[in-house]
């Protein structure tokens, strides 16, 4: 029997960031949009659906052709993979890790729709005539295909895996990537996720009657549902060994994480917010921080009546009576599903690094029964040391991450 010594990396650092969403195609464009308080929702222009001009969504403002040209991927490939590659590449370039080829590098990528956008194209022809339909449209249907396409382009061969836990998917990818580094299995992990808009998700959420026909109003008493969005967000996680060789300071560290489950309902949170409460509490315990140490909460804040009251109840149980500033950036990006944990991790890191707090757009009326409300305006020069980022998914799958200044 071979005994291996596991040298645990005590700290996991964030060395690179990459993001694409309805408000920008890279980190810099996002910072500009936040500063201008400019939301990304609008009428549907790219997705081919009967809900055009009826349901607002937050589309990435680039066509598949433009994304293919940017990334060097073939035009016919799933939009999920296209978005994923844009953000993952930005993150890896941003990290600028010297001598990367001699390090153990992994790609942990999450999504919930996989290549569904292309499968939908296939079915239009196939349902009309079952001898028709191009099989190359279903070739990359699986969620894992997205990861493989992008890993190949990034030149990552040593370790790759795909997580799919609905709306907490990419927060769990970051959580898992951190554990791979902590257990000395990898030195560098590009972790996060991507999702593109599809008929499947738009019609599914519409059936659940949780889409707002107006721009969403997270944490507002008169909120009526969410707006779907799309995009991708990745962080580059590195070990303490790698951080010493960086040509720059890391952004921050990932100090806490937890995943807990409501076991309450397929798509709803328990009214007490049990899963979200346990996730936030567990992440605080992992980081060794007290609730009072948290300087900003990036809420899950979808804008559905159920999520926001459950999450609000859980926040109250932990933070009452001293609430940190909090907001839902889904008021800018819409709900990007499997990408949201990765996108909002990038926002959380930027909050620490750039000393900013994002506004919760369109907030007017405080929710009944709550003594707190989200931040309404973009705030600069904020002294932020610890940020909590919440991502809660269908199936009761709740994850909280905590990022801390180094």
């Amino acid at each position, binding site marked *: *029997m*071979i005994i*291996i010594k596991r040298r645990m990396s005590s700290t996991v650092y964030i060395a690179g960031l990459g993001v694409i969403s309805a408000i920008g195609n890279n980190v810099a464009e996002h910072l500009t949009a936040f500063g201008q308080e400019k939301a990304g929702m609008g009428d549907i222009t790219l997705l081919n659906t009967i809900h055009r001009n009826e349901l607002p969504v937050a589309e990435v403002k680039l066509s598949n052709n433009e994304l293919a040209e940017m990334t060097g991927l073939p035009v016919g490939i799933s939009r999920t993979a296209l978005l994923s590659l844009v953000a993952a590449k930005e993150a890896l370039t941003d990290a600028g890790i010297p001598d990367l080829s001699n390090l*153990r590098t992994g790609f942990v990528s999450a999504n919930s729709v996989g290549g569904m956008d292309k499968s939908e194209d296939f079915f239009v022809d196939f349902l009309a005539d079952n001898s028709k339909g191009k099989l190359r449209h279903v070739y990359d249907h699986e969620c894992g295909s997205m990861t493989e396409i992008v890993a190949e382009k990034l030149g990552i061969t*040593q*370790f790759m895996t795909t997580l799919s836990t609905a709306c907490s998917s990419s927060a769990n990818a970051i959580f898992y990537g951190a554990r791979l580094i902590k257990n000395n*299995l*990898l030195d560098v992990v590009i972790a996060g996720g991507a999702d593109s808009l599809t008929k499947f998700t738009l019609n*599914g959420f*519409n*059936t*659940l*009657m949780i889409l707002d026909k107006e721009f969403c109003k997270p944490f507002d008493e008169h909120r009526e549902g969410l707006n779907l969005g799309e995009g991708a967000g990745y962080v580059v996680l590195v070990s303490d060994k790698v951080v010493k060789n960086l040509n720059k300071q890391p952004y921050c560290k990932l100090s806490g994480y937890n995943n807990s489950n409501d*076991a*309450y*309902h*397929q*798509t709803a949170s328990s009214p007490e917010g049990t899963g979200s409460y346990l996730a936030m509490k567990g992440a605080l315990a992992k980081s060794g921080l007290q609730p009072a140490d948290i300087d900003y909460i990036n809420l899950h804040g979808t804008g559905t009546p159920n999520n926001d009251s459950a999450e609000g109840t859980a926040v109250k149980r932990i933070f009452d009576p001293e609430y940190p500033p909090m907001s839902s950036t889904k008021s800018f990006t819409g709900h990007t599903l499997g990408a949201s944990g990765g996108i909002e991790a990038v926002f959380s890191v930027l909050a620490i690094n750039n000393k900013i707090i994002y506004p919760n757009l369109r907030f007017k009326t405080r929710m009944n029964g709550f003594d707190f409300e989200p931040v309404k305006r973009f705030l600069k020069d904020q002294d932020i040391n610890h940020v909590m980022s919440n991502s809660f998914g269908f*199936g009761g799958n709740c994850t909280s991450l905590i990022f801390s200044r180094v």
Partner: protein
Amino acid sequence: MNIFEHANSELNLPTDKYINGSCSIAKGVITKDANIIYDSDCYDISESLFSIYQHFELAYPKFYKMDNLSKLGWLTAEILLKNSFEKKDYQPERVGLILANANSSLDVDLRYIESANDIASPSLFVYTLPNIVIGEISIRNGFKGEHAFFVQESFDSDFIARQVNYLLDNDILQACICGWVDVLRQDYKSTLFLVEKNKKESSVLFSAENMRHIFDNN
């Protein structure tokens, strides 16, 4: 370089495993451990499942919300475990489920599509995945172990046995409920097995052949 090449250097030898209970529901008849214990005497699936629910006095309001696949699996598990399983003997993380069927969630998928002609029903939509039945059984019993739902043409006892052996031999689970839960319209059949490592008087050795035998005779 395979980064995990030394991660699992110790191989686990197969441990003895036993079928400590079985329960089938088909054509309105319930068979537990080879004995017919109830005949609902009706052929309609919905009536049959409700009759079983009432007969065993199972007070669980959520039952009414479930689709027929979840109702069938949940009822089979209730009767399988009743007086046959000591929950307190196990950590919640050490009890899991391996289920399979031929028709996935097609039964409720069809009902959902029919509802969409009028107003698409959210309550039907949330059941349009076959593994929801595993969730319903796990929530009822507080099980938190590994689980998987497979779709296969017919009951593949070799396949199920391989999955369960892997989970129990590697101490990932200490007890596993496995078997078949299938519904399409009025056709339905379930057979669940309780697999544990302790031998009881009534135990049958856990094997693909013994599962197949019980499945075929119910």
